Structure formats: structure tokens, C-alpha cells
């Protein structure tokens, strides 16, 4: 897939919780095709201490408006600076990067934890477009960390697990009854321990499980070789061969 380096106009910057925000970024020309699970490398231009671009998952795409939505958790100086961008500013992005989620199966479960829920919106939309309504399972510590539940509900059957039981079932995503059901394919993005637990259970039931990794990287286009993951065929770049991998192909999963 051809990659581009373009300036996007910030048309919305919405604070969702104290640590999560969503950017709506608009291109002044037609967007190329973007697959769910792909990512962008965004240049942070309002913080001198940030040197490298930041790789961020594509949350959703509004093709008719040439808009890309990015869901961001503030975890450091780069994402903190990004949270302060103003509507009307321009952000430079290299996109679309990586291989996304392959659309397989008819009964599918999408599981997101923390900021890992980001690509699942675009994935849900892609499944809807081919006539499949997926199940989405979101896990977080407490209901204060939940957001965009209406949007997820409109594209999928939404299930929630919170560690304190303040919303949905009490426990981890792997404790949720929906996770005990049989699915054709499971897709997950979130903290590594969560994805490993999901992968382990999926293997027991012979369900293919796709995981989306977020290894630190510099270039995002397969040149720096910094973001490698250990696979059954040796080191592979998360940026070009991933970020989505079949968990069976990864060591330690």
C-alpha cells in the first residue's frame, strides 16, 4: 500500500476522560484506502523535547469527510503535548502504516483494554460494511475510564468488564461470559498481559486470535528495525509486518 506524508487540519480535539482524548484530523484531498488496525506516525510540533514522531493507532475513518480519528492516552510528554493542539492547527502524519486486521469469520469478538480499544471502532465499522455485526468487549479498571460506549454500541454488541464492577461484569475481560462463547475469530488490542491471557485461552479453544502490538519505534516504515517482535520466523518489524499478528506466530504468546 502506498504511504503518504501529509498535513492534516485539526477539526476537533475532544477530552474524553482526564487521560484520554480524541482528535479528528482532516485532509484537504481524498483519503487513500485505510485498513482497520493500521496506524499513523504523527509529528509533535509543539514540544521541543519530543524528537521522534509518535506512532498512533487509527481509531476511525470518515471517508466522506476525509477525516481520520485518533484516540490517544496521555502517557508521556509527546502525548501530553498532542493533547494541547488547537482546532485549526495542522499536524503532519505519515500514513497509512502497517498491516491491519484481516476480516475473517462471521461470528467475531473484538476485545480492547485501555487505549487498545482505539482500532476496534474502525474494525467494527469494517465488519458492518460487509454485513457482520461483531461483539465488542471492553475492559478497564472502573467506569470513569469508559468512553464512546454509544459509538461502540452502534456498530457492535457491546460488553463491558470493569475490575471494580462499577459497570458491566466485575473482573477481567477473560472473566466475561461472552468470552466463554465460541467465536470464529478473536481480535484484540490492549496491554500485553491481557492479550497474552486472551491468546492463551483462544488457543485452548482453537480460535484464531489476532493481536495488535504497540512496540516502540522510530521510523514506522521498516527502516530503523527498532520495533522488532520475536516470531517463529525470527525478528519481524512491528511497523511493517504488524502491528497485527496472529498470536500463534509470536513467541511468548
Amino acid at each position, binding site marked *: 500500500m502506498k504511504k503518504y*506524508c501529509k498535513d492534516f487540519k485539526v477539526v476537533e480535539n475532544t477530552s474524553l476522560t482526564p487521560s484520554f482524548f480524541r482528535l479528528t484530523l482532516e485532509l484537504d484531498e481524498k483519503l487513500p484506502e485505510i485498513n482497520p488496525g493500521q496506524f499513523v506516525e504523527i509529528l509533535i510540533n509543539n514540544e521541543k523535547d519530543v524528537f521522534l514522531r509518535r506512532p498512533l493507532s487509527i481509531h476511525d475513518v470518515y471517508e466522506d469527510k476525509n477525516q481520520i480519528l485518533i484516540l490517544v492516552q496521555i502517557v508521556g510528554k509527546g502525548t501530553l503535548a498532542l493533547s494541547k493542539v488547537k482546532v485549526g492547527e495542522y499536524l503532519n502524519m505519515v500514513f497509512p502504516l502497517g498491516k491491519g486486521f484481516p476480516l475473517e469469520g462471521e461470528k467475531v469478538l473484538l476485545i480492547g483494554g485501555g487505549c487498545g480499544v482505539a482500532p476496534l471502532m474502525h474494525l467494527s465499522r469494517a465488519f458492518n460494511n460487509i454485513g457482520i455485526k461483531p461483539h465488542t468487549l471492553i475492559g478497564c479498571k472502573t467506569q470513569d475510564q469508559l468512553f464512546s460506549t454509544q459509538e461502540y454500541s452502534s456498530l457492535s454488541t457491546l460488553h463491558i468488564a470493569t475490575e471494580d464492577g462499577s459497570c458491566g461484569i466485575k473482573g477481567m475481560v477473560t472473566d466475561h461470559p461472552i468470552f466463554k462463547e465460541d467465536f470464529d475469530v478473536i481480535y484484540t488490542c490492549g496491554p500485553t498481559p491481557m492479550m497474552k491471557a486472551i491468546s492463551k485461552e483462544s488457543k485452548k479453544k482453537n480460535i484464531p486470535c489476532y493481536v495488535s502490538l504497540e512496540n516502540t519505534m522510530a*521510523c514506522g516504515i521498516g527502516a530503523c528495525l527498532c*520495533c*522488532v517482535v520475536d516470531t517463529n520466523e525470527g525478528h519481524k518489524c512491528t511497523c511493517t509486518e504488524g502491528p497485527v499478528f496472529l498470536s500463534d506466530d509470536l513467541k511468548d504468546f
Partner: protein
Amino acid sequence: MKVIDKRLEVKIKDLNLKNPIMTASGTFGYGEEFEDFLDISSLGGIIVKGTTGSRREGNPYPRMAETPSGMLNAVGLQNKGVDEFCNNVYDRIKHYNTNILVNVSGSTIEEYVEVAEKINSLEKIPGIELNISCPNVKQGGMGFGTSCPMASEVVKEVRKVYNKTLIVKLSPNVTNIIEIAKAVEDSGADGLSLINTVLGMAVDSEKRKPLLSTITGGLSGPAIKPIALRCVWQVAKNTKLPIIGLGGIMSASDAIEFILVGASAVQIGTANFIDPSICEKIIAEMSQYLDRHNLKSFDEIRGII
């Protein structure tokens, strides 16, 4: 059709460069990775990923840490080996109308010689860059570039089997870079690339752990530009070899600083990660500089400091 500015042409031994802008090994893949962002054939040259005798997996993840005005890497020469390069990669990239140089790496003199000999047979590769300065491998690499007798020996042995342009990439992690440069010059090198990354480390105070799996790594980016300039200046004053300067170049003015202290050409490295089309922009700005200063070429200001 782009207008080619003849004023930017430069010669390094038998290499004819359209302009002094090359890409640094390990930051530009095999060129293919950047095809969507710029015209590879507009560059003075590309130096492809460090290539060893056999396939290497490199170091474990994590291999990268962002640092003030730069980054540390500890990739450790991950590559598919010289045979894969000769049999597959070469055929994919040989059509680029630019100087394709292979960065030759190894753990032993025999390995350097083996790789150089195999690359010597490739018609469209007019030169190699002998990497005696990688800080991220346990054996060889920087070990050869930090001792005069060892640097001398590896260059002499490679020279016996390699008859095209032989550039040697030096490490800044030495007490006296002039001595190493002279040893390499006396052993038959045609030119020098300097500098490779500066040995450094980064620590996470919250997790109380190093950020790299290897603890130490190679620092690159604008943070090292003053060190690189100093090394190029010192070596330019003390050897006759043409020098390709690199280390933290992010703009045409950075590149011209290297020319002012004696570099014939420069390499753009880490900057490719920030802006994948930066090399083309720098080339255009180099022409603008000549216009602005009313110069016929960079020969008029090369090494004047």
C-alpha cells in the same frame, strides 16, 4: 522533470555524486522503504543496511530510546546476510540511478573479507563502506575501529579483495580519531565516513531499569552534531582522504557546516525517521544556499574552517 543542479556535483575517488547528499546506513533500509516519499535517484548516494556474512537476528527488543535531541539504538546489525543481498535485494534495487554503497560489517577479518569479495562482483555497486564502528555488537564492529593496528589490518585485508571505492566508517568512541584515520589512510582506504553513533545509555527512573535490552547503545541525531563536526574537522586537517560527514544533520545548513569543516559529502541518517522526504528538501536548499552566497560550487568553501 526535475532540474539537476550541476553545481552540486562532487567526486569521491571514483564515485561521481549528483549532489553531496547520501543516506546513512541503517536509517534508509535498502531505499525501497522510502520510494513513496522521494525519488531515490535524486540522491547523491545511498548506503544500504549493514551486511554481514550470514543472517543476523540482532539484539533483543527493546532496541530504541528517545533522548534529548536524538535517539539511542541497539539494533545490532540485524540483516539477512550477504548472500540474500546478492541474490535478491540487489536485483530489486540495482535500477536506482544513484550510487548504491553497501555497508560491510563483520565480527572477524575473514567475515569482512568474505562480504567485501562478494559485493565486489556486483556491477551496480560502485563502492562499500567498511563498518568498523558499530557499537552494538559483542564481537568485532567497534573493536576494529578503536585500535590502530586492528583498523589497519582489516582495511589492508579488505583492500586485497576489493578494487572499487573503499570508504571506511569510523567511530567517535576513541581517544584520538586522527590516529585511527591516518592508520586507515595508510592501509589503502579511498575515503572516510565519520562519525558512527556515540556510545551512550538511557535509564528509566520509575522502573529503575535501563531502556535498552543491551543497556548501552548508539546515540544519533542532533545531539551528536557538535561531536561529529569536531571529528570531521580534526580528520580533514590531518589526512588527505575525502570525508563523508554525518551525525545529526537535519537541514541544509547542518550539511553545509560539515562541508565548511572539510567534508566532501554528507549522510542523512536519523532525520529520515522524522521526515522521510527530508533528503530532497535538503538538496533543494543546498542549491538555494549557492544562489544566496553567489557561489559556483561548494568547492569554494570546502574546508575553509
